[in-house]
């Protein structure tokens, strides 16, 4: 469970995120839809405890973002951006293990977990090879495995398909749906309407730091008497995506 309460972030005079509130239920995918510069990354960075909110807070997995950021971090996994950044001179296993260790996993468990992830993502063949020479698809799998090595129950995805080709996008979508199938609570930001429509249970539209609408697709269509999400977005934001 994830609850966001009046979350606000100012960068100097710029209000990047302006008092947004929403809830995400367990096992649900919440889509944060907005143009470039709307405040999606800033929101997710606050949820990931990387940025300190100017005001407001969020409760993730029962822990308060402001008061117990370390506890919050133990419950979340992140995948930010489309490019899968890895340590090129470390092997796939070493890349994953580093994040497991920093998340306080003990060595025995970690080893088992990596073996399990290698199997799930079909990486067994190259798990002990250095990441520098991997294809994009191989790197992507390692990045997926890294984000869930500590088995978090909340996943934060910030535009995870930006700049990717069709098959890589399909892999990301599959991964997100797998996470959902495992009962993880998910926030996904995107500026692609079709992606949000395809994956999300509920959608929030963010514009200039404000959450201008939220609900299921059916609810949003009805509230704004529109025939498509595209129309809803234009109506609220004044521009097409």
């Amino acid at each position: 469970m994830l609850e966001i309460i009046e979350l606000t972030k100012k960068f100097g005079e710029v209000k990047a995120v302006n008092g947004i509130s929403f809830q995400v239920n367990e096992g649900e995918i919440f889509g944060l839809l907005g143009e470039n510069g709307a405040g999606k990354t800033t929101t997710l960075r606050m949820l990931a405890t990387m940025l300190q909110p100017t005001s407001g807070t969020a409760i993730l997995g029962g822990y308060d973002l402001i008061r117990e950021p370390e506890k919050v971090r133990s419950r979340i996994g992140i995948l930010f951006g489309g490019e899968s950044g890895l340590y090129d001179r470390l092997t796939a296993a070493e890349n994953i293990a580093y994040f497991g260790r920093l998340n306080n996993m003990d060595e025995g468990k970690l080893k088992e977990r990596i073996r399990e992830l290698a199997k799930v993502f079909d990486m067994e063949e190259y798990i002990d090879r250095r990441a520098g020479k991997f294809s994009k698809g191989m790197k992507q799998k390692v990045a997926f495995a890294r984000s869930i090595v500590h088995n978090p129950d909340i996943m934060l995805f910030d535009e995870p398909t930006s700049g990717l080709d069709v098959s890589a996008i399909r892999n990301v979508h599959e991964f997100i749906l797998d996470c959902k199938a495992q009962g993880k609570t998910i926030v996904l930001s995107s500026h692609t309407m079709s992606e949000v429509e395809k994956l999300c249970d509920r959608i929030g539209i963010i514009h200039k730091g404000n959450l201008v609408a939220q609900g299921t697709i059916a609810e949003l269509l009805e509230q704004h008497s529109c025939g498509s999400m595209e129309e809803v977005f234009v109506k609220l934001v004044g521009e097409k995506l």
Partner: protein
Amino acid sequence: MSLKHVWIVFKKEVKDISRDRRTLLTNLLIPIILMPLLFTFLGGSMKKMEKDITENITVALTRESDTEEIRNLLENEVFKNYPNIKLNGSVDNPAEAIQNDKFRFVIDVEKDFSSRLEQGIPYTITIHYDQSDTKSSGSFGILAEAIRSYSQKTVKNRLIEMNIDPQILEPVTIQQVNAAKDNASGNFMIMMMLPMMASILIAVGGIPAATDLVAGEKERGTFEPLLTTQAGRMSVLFGKYLTVTLFSFVSVIAQLIGVVIGGMINPTFFTMVEGGSGELSFSIPTGALLLSILTIITLGMVFSAVQLAISTYARSFKEAQTYLSFLIFAAMIPSYATMMMQPDDLQLYMFIVPLLNAIASLKMILGSVINYTYLGIGLGTSLIYVILSLMFAAWMFNKEKYLFRN
């Protein structure tokens, strides 16, 4: 901050960076190879130059003064005790002969010298040489000395003929006593080079690591996942800080190994300077050695913190590299400025200024003129700089504005 997380970060970074060939090259191989090369080439060419200056001094006469009598004067009188000066032939154009490196000197002697000599009237010997040429100007002293001592001998003979004691010409004699400690002048070369190289290498050594560890991490996109692990931000910073510090020491240690190898190849290099005792000798008290090593270590720590702060500030890997290379210049300026400085010239303020204090401490112990108060002040101020620079790095690392700008 958790020590466990610091250790995990440190271990990973060391493993990661030591797999990078480029870093190993700059941190290990170059310092190890550079010093012996420097010793061999610089030492070799210095030796050859010295040999050329003192030996093989070729002299010709001008055509006009090329007479039996003059040749006899020079060969059997003036150059008699100078076997390295070789009179050989005569030339029409002295300037041309010298320019073409045919002869180092061309000498002209007044033709009527013997009658002048008999009458006691001075006569002139003209020496043509090239002052812009190191060999020519270097050997000039030897040639002039030969003529001067011949001149003195002539005076002596005249005085003896007149029954006057030649000692009358020398009312005062000068006696030289070198007050420098035995090894102080002998270690001149190493005193000059080692502190300079050490401070520059310490500044350079951490750079590949520092660039990679924050700017590189940001550019690669691994920084955000890293900051979302349970390791606190300060643990991440500290693990990285220790890594950068380690690598800046690795290059200093590599340099020392290089010095030792260089010393084995060419043992006289360090002392190849006038007045050197010809042997490298150290008698550094353990306490002083320890103090100065600690000061050097703290210098490495200050550099590491500053480098990490810069790497955090940089927008990209490239930008970080550019900023960090400016830092090398910052290290070079005080190093060069004090390069020729002798241990006796060291002053209190030098032990207070960052960077300069490490250089000064090293110079002091290498020169064996030890002042524990100064060394202590050097270490004390260095420790303060370590704390200040770390606070600066931590402040930078907590600054959202710099950490997350893209």
